[in-house]
């Protein structure tokens, strides 16, 4: 069962590149973790993403409280209070003010700030659960299939193929139906009734590991053929030791990056399912549900629509930027510092050879320079 899928080819090429020594600045005896950390914290987009996400996270979990711990905000997402100024948001940038209902109120007087914060909490919880479960199963299935090959691989990968074509929407609908059955004759219905979000997250996690498993398998397939694995095997290392000590640390970059991207997709998935009515159900709330409930009111109460949407976009965007930063940090081919080097080399070469043909358009900075990287080429 050795079908060279495209992933494997790309990964094989990546492996070739990775085999080459990194650029000089990174050869100063730093460990892999230190290099990755240094690159990640040199990525301004990722840092901004991290800051924004931390801010939203702290705000969402402290303001309306979590798991019985009260928060600092005076309302919660189900409290109904009298409408003030017809529910118009009281927050303003100039003059800087917060006010009684910063994001406004809905038609019956619930505080939108509290609802949005509660929704953001739910979305983040679902996102983390999906990321955790999908990462774990994906790593185990992909790792086993890639390392042991043979029948293990055939069975696990066919299972992956089956799950990958079963529509997620259908599974979500089934879960929603089961959680909604209030006959409470099973422990599941009781558990689902009190922890709807957790159940939804677990089920979505159980189906979103398939992409990760394929990637991890590809990574394991290339890594198990490398010399250091042969060396370990010859010196008598057990399978478990080879997997955990030699292969997994090298595959963890791919895993982390793609778990992050799965998480950002999970946020959109959750909001979409809630929007279609098979995700989080009322009276609990989520960002997608808030938009779905309020889209008719756009003409009269646009803030009900703006704030939840902006929070979805902000969470998803910050996670995407963090993922991008992680990818740059883990992938040695993406050299953040090449731009400056390239510009310098262009300058240098244009001083020595000023007759650059201007008619065909100035050559883009990154391309004309001879590759300054000693490893490639």
């Amino acid at each position: 069962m050795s079908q060279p899928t495209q992933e494997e080819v790309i990964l094989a090429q990546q492996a070739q590149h990775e085999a080459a020594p990194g650029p000089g600045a990174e050869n100063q005896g730093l460990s892999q973790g230190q290099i990755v950390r240094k690159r990640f914290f040199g990525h301004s987009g990722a840092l901004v993403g991290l800051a924004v996400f931390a801010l939203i996270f702290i705000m969402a979990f402290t303001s309306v409280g979590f798991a019985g711990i009260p928060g600092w905000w005076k309302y919660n997402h189900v409290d109904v209070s009298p409408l003030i100024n017809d529910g118009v948001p009281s927050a303003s940038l100039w003059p800087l003010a917060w006010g009684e209902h910063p994001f406004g109120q809905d038609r019956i007087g619930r505080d939108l700030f509290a609802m949005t914060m509660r929704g953001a909490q739910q979305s983040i919880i679902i996102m983390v659960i999906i990321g955790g479960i999908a990462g774990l199963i994906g790593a185990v299935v992909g790792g086993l299939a890639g390392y042991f090959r043979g029948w293990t691989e055939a069975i696990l990968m066919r299972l992956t193929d089956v799950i990958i074509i079963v529509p997620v929407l259908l599974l979500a609908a089934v879960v929603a139906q089961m959680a909604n059955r209030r006959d409470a004759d099973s422990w599941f219905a009781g558990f689902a009734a009190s922890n709807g979000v957790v159940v939804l997250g677990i089920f979505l996690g159980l189906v979103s590991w398939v992409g990760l498993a394929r990637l991890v398998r590809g990574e394991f397939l290339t890594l198990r053929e490398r010399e250091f694995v042969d060396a370990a095997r010859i010196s008598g290392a057990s399978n478990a030791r080879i997997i955990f000590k030699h292969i997994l640390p090298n595959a963890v970059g791919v895993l982390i990056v793609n778990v992050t991207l799965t998480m950002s997709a999970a946020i959109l998935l959750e909001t979409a399912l809630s929007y279609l009515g098979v995700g989080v159900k009322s009276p609990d709330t989520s960002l997608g549900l808030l938009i779905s409930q309020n889209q008719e009111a756009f003409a009269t109460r646009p803030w009900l629509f703006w704030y939840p949407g902006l929070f979805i976009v902000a969470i998803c965007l910050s996670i995407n930027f963090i993922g991008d930063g992680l990818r740059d940090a883990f992938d040695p081919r993406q050299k953040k510092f090449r731009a400056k080097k390239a510009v310098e080399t262009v300058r240098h070469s244009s001083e020595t050879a000023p007759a650059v043909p201007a008619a065909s358009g100035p050559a883009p900075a990154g391309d004309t320079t001879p590759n300054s990287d000693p490893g490639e080429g």
Partner: protein
Amino acid sequence: MLSYVVRRLATAALILLGASFLVYLLTASSGDPLADLRASNAPNRQQLMDARSQLLDLDTPAPLRYFKWLGGAAQCLVPFAGNCDLGKSVTGQPITEALGIALIQTLTLVTGATVLAILIGITLGIVTALRQYSALDYGVTFMAFLFFSLPIFWVAVLLKEFGAIGFNNFLRNPVIPLPVSLGTGIVLGVVVAVAVGGEIKRRLISGGVVFALVTAVMVYLSATLWFKTPGLGPVVIGIAGVGMAFAVTTLVSGLKNRKALQSSLIMAGLGVISWFVIQPLLAQATGLMIFLLAIGTVLVGVGVGYLMGGYDRGQSMRAAGITAFLVGGLVVMDRFMQAWPTYFNNSRVRGRPIATIGAGTPNLQGDYWILTIDTFTHLILPTVALILVSLASYTRFTRSSMLEIMNMDYIRTARAKGLSERAVIMGHAFRNALIPLATIVAFDIGALIGGAVITESVFSVHGMGFLFLDGITHIDPNPVMGVFLCVAITAMVFNLVADLAYSALDPRVRIKA
């Protein structure tokens, strides 16, 4: 090779069997299909429930029902037998019929959006790769991430509000305020100045020219109330045609190839002449005729290129053919614009042309042009929404693929042997950068059939996604299975096509038989 394909297809069939069994059971067990009848107060409740049980064969347990369904579905494999049976929906409609209708709706919605998203995404990806780490690159990257993070239903509501309701209000009195004209001019000028690259002076001049041009055009459009009675006319077609001839020649062969430039310019001239000649013919247009005309136009262009010849006959033919197609498009667009006032004042449309829901105005009467405009005005919002959310992945993918190629040794070789930058990019880099994209595009075409569930539900288009969602909410396995079969089969076939195409395009990848 053959054994590889056969083995892949056999595995696919087994996977399909397993997955379809799973889907059937899940749908059947997701709830009670009689729930709405149980809750009703109709006097003939019991009869209705019996009728539905009979129709959906609810007395048979779900696993057995699956095999009954499978027996019907297996007959679809017999070609030309015509007794394909995928069961019936809750309303008693045969699924094969419902699928046919839904498929047409979905394809009209998604095809245009996918093609446009691919074209725009590849262009943006290539431009940002060539201007790596410039302001344009960072701008486009940020926009790509932003679009990637947008929930489509949120975009859809915004588009409905500002794209449809706002634009319709604007059309009532199409006067563009001067600040808006200036603002648009400045924005586009800055974008062009950033995109051009090179020295500051060159950037400033390009940006300034674009700013002046855009602002002047917008002031002119506003002053003449152009949006009430839009049109291009032979003059605009002529000017735009010459511009296109130069642009296409630059990309295809470089302006140094005079014969290619001349053939393109001839096609622009022929386009203007054809505008006068073809108007009576276009009055009786049908879809087939437009299609044949398009093919004819391209053939004429290729013919002109062949006759002009030059040192590279192929380049002349390509340049002239592409120019001919674009100029022909302008002539057709002008004809659509001529039909616009009639459509706009139609009693069914009542001066609010951009529609927010549905796939067409009900009971609209009119010729080919009116009906096609109607389809366009209904498609425009979902198309824009779909393009926005799917653009990002194409842009990012093309960019990284192009960057990788531009660092290859053979690109350096091509430069070293003295090729122009155009030849290096278009001839050596661009084509190879497209190879990995071929697989992505194949995957996306496979997924296209499934429709966009959320987009369809927001814009009330009754396509495949709608059928699927409807089946789930009514706990009706047959439509769900029908949609699932279509989607899964196309996805698997295109997966195979993607792998085969990859090995055909990139000889380094070999398929182990």
